[in-house]
């Protein structure tokens, strides 16, 4: 009973106490007005505001009501507007009993000093930021705040470290009163420095002119920006934005003693941090809210001053980070992978090492098992293969000095009598002399290395015919790792071979005919190309002849003329060798080819043709294009044909619209050359017939070009495709496989 009473009493007491607390909090709520000079959209304003409000919220022991006003006086400089704003604010805050006014920016301070009696009578003011002199002049009028003067000396210290050799200094400022005062201050600071500059003051230039001027500055110039609120024609600007744009456009590094240029093209400077300024100001306001008299709080120096640079800008101007003063705050530096994740990387590496160990062990185990399995599988495959081949002869080679076992069919393939005993020597002698060495080598290599045989050789049959025989062989050995024995087959592939050769010959012959016809078309152009050097040679020779007939012979001049003759002669020689290349009977030879070079030499050959037909050529060749392998003559013909097709496609266009783009690029395992024209494109009904022989839409065309091109590209393991462009015309793409080149170390 007693204990219950005690409990109730305690509960009541607690409730009472609680309600008193709330009532007390409501009574003692404090009110702060943040008065900003600018609009919230101005760079830096938000950071200062957030710094101040965050600090107030975090540290205030009491409930706080925070008001904010953005005067925007820079954009509305009209005195009437100022008066209106003052009256409006006075009315708005009547009865609100403000405890502290925090001003951000000099205009807000000036404004509250002027209109404080109406808006917030006798309310202490905390200013962010004012020069020390201003605070001193206002001592005793309930004003304190953070001191931050206008100073470019430290910013110049930084610039001089980064650009020690720069001969020129350019100072940028606007034409407003504030801008001009700034220039005065900066001028004194610059003139009192040890280093002598060729200094230019760009003060109050119209914005466009300013941007133009800075974009023309020599690279090795130090540019220091101050502020730019107005130009000399009365245009108003948001200073920070104007200066950010100057920094972006400038052809030299731009420094600025404000932190909100970092990240926007400014290299750096010595500056306060906006957020810290806000917080520091808020701390002073909190002291006042706690009951301290503003007159007793001395203005404080800013605590966040530091050298600040933007690492990306250092890179942009190739300035060395090693020259920075100690303690410089470097923003936007990309940490190396190691810096960022070295714990993770070490961990992963050790994990990988462990895993590798386990893998090696498992693999070794596995290998022995696989060898046994594969022997079985291959023997089964061999039997199936032997059974399935009717026109093949099976043979078995045990050792070099032992007879070779061979199925009956084997002897008939080789044209030997049924009961001929077989040995390596006898087999060798039945082969075409040129192929004998390769044959013996193939068998010996296989017997030594255990690698399968896949080769071809020729024999001359009894009626004098040459026949092609394919030889496949599979070396084996017993479990004791004894010598290899080989089981294999011979098969007659003469018919296949002949067809292949014939096709190849036909293809080559057609290709040559095509080249000749292309050459015929190009003859005028080639004559022109040859005539140029010949003309120069003739003129030069005649000049030399004339000079030699004069009394005073100018040896130097004649030397010069002869050098030119030699040069022009070389040029003519090149034209001829180009043409000869084109006419050469291709032998399907394969060499390493730089596709870019091939494109260039083809375009050179066609130069006169482009001129004659008034066609503009755009060439875009990819850098570091991998090599391809093939016959340069044949591939050049493909390019010639495709480019000439592109030219023909534009016959009906006005000369100003005739243009061809030729571009190369690497695409996966292939390199591609694309030929884009802006002609009439390919009619839908022709799309499927493009590559068929004798299909043509040209008046005098043979209809072989694309079919031959396609065959050549296919023979090189590539693909030719032609498609219409979205905006008109067609694009032909030749894709060819990359040839891996082994570069000797």
């Amino acid at each position, binding site marked *: 009973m007693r204990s219950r009473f005690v409990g109730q009493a305690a509960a009541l007491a607690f409730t009472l106490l609680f309600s008193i607390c709330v009532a007390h909090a409501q009574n003692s709520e404090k009110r702060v007005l943040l008065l900003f000079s600018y609009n919230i959209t101005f760079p830096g304003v938000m950071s200062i505001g957030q710094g101040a409000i965050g600090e107030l919220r975090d540290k205030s022991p009491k409930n706080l009501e925070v008001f904010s006003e953005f005067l925007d006086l820079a954009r509305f400089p009209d005195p009437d507007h100022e008066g209106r704003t003052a009256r409006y604010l006075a009315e708005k805050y009547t009865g609100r009993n403000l405890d502290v006014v925090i001003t951000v920016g000099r205009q807000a301070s000036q404004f509250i000093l002027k209109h404080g009696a109406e808006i917030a009578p006798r309310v202490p003011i905390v200013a962010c930021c004012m020069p020390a002199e201003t605070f001193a002049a206002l001592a005793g009028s309930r004003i304190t705040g953070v001191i931050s003067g206008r100073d470019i000396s430290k910013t110049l210290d930084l610039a001089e470290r980064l650009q020690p050799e720069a001969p020129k200094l350019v100072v940028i400022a606007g034409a407003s009163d504030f801008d001009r005062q700034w220039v005065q201050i900066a001028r004194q600071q610059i003139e009192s420095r040890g280093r002598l500059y060729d200094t230019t003051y760009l003060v109050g230039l119209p914005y466009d002119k300013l941007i133009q001027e800075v974009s023309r500055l020599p690279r090795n110039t130090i540019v220091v920006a101050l502020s730019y609120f107005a130009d000399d024609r009365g245009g108003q600007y948001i200073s920070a934005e104007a200066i950010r744009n100057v920094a972006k456009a400038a052809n030299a590094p731009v420094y600025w003693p404000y932190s909100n240029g970092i990240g926007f093209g400014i290299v750096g400077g010595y500056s306060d941090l906006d957020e810290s300024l806000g917080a520091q100001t808020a701390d002073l306001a909190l002291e006042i809210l706690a009951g301290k008299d503003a007159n007793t709080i001395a203005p404080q120096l800013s605590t966040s001053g530091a050298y600040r640079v933007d690492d990306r800008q250092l890179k942009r101007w190739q300035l060395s980070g090693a020259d920075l003063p100690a303690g410089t705050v470097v923003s936007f530096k990309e940490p190396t992978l190691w810096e960022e994740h070295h714990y993770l990387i070490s961990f992963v590496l050790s994990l990988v090492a462990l895993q590798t160990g386990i893998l090696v062990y498992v693999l070794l185990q596995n290998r022995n098992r696989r060898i046994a399995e594969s022997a079985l599988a291959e023997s089964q495959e061999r039997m199936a293969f032997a059974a399935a081949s009717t026109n093949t002869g099976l043979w078995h080679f045990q050792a070099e000095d032992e007879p070779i076992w061979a199925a009956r069919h084997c002897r008939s393939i080789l044209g030997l009598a049924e009961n001929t005993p077989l040995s390596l020597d006898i087999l060798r002698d039945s082969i075409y002399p040129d192929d004998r060495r390769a044959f013996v080598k193939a068998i010996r290599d296989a017997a030594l290395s255990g690698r399968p045989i896949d080769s071809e050789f020729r024999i001359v049959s009894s009626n004098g015919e040459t026949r092609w025989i394919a030889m496949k062989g599979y070396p084996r050995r017993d479990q004791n790792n004894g010598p290899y024995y080989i089981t294999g087959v011979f098969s007659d592939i003469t018919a296949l071979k002949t067809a292949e050769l014939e096709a190849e010959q036909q293809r080559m012959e057609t290709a040559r005919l095509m080249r000749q016809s292309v050459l015929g078309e190009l003859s005028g152009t080639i*004559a022109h190309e040859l005539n140029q050097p010949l003309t120069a040679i003739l003129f030069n020779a005649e000049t030399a002849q004339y000079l030699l007939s004069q009394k005073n012979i100018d040896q130097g001049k004649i030397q010069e003329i002869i050098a030119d003759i030699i040069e022009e002669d070389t040029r003519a020689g090149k034209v001829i060798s180009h043409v000869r290349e084109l006419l050469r009977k291709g032998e399907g030879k394969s060499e390493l080819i730089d596709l870019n070079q091939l494109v260039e030499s083809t375009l050179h050959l066609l130069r006169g043709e482009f001129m004659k037909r008034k066609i503009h050529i755009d060439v875009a060749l990819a850098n570091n294009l991998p090599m391809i392998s093939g016959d340069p003559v044949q591939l050049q013909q493909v390019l010639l044909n495709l480019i000439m097709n592109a030219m023909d496609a534009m016959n009906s266009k006005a000369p100003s619209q005739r243009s061809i783009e030729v571009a190369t690029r690497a695409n996966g395992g292939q390199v591609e050359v694309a030929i884009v024209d802006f002609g009439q494109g390919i009619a839908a009904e022709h799309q499927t017939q493009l590559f068929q022989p004798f299909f043509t839409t040209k008046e005098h065309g043979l209809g072989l070009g694309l079919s031959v091109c396609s065959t050549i590209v296919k023979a090189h393991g590539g693909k030719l495709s032609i498609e219409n462009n979205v905006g008109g015309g067609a694009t032909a793409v030749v894709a060819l496989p990359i040839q891996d080149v082994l570069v000797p170390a």
Partner: protein
Amino acid sequence: MNDSRFVIFLVDDDPGVLKALSRILDTKGYEVRAFSSSAEFLAQHDPSIPGCAIFDVSMPELDGIQLQAALKAGGVERPVIFITGVGDIPVSVQAMKAGAIDFLTKPVKSQQLLAAIALAAEKEAQALEVRGELASVNDRISKLTPREREVLTHVIAGRLNKQIAADLGTVEKTIKLHRGRMMRKMGVRTVADLVRIAQRGGIKPSRTRV
């Protein structure tokens, strides 16, 4: 031949040919200005300098034939000699019709070229003479009073003093006076001479015939 006031303007996009051609003409004592493109030539060409032009026919952008047309369109009467890598008959006909001095196929012998230049120089000299005469006629015409000029148009229309007086609403004696002064200023004695130079000066006879 060594008249320093006669300049040869060369336009050829081939640097080798341009150099060799400038060199030979320079050696032969001509003043040469060489240009490697039509655009460069048009940008720097001073039509008031007497001389002739040698154009390569096939050049990128503006070719030789188009360049000749461009000069003509701009009112420049400069004698042009063409040289070409390819002897294209239709093109040469077109060029000659447009007033070319010659159309030479590369490689060109210097003799041929020098002959063509000599022809161009002769043509240019004639043109200069004509231009000089025209200038003097225009000069004389400009010295006439409006009334004298009016009388002139009537005289070359074959009107008698009496008729002119009637047309202009004055007396024959006044017309006679004007006519005398006008003939003196024009530097002619006979009506035939007057008709000839008035025509050259582009003055048309009066049409006030009732």
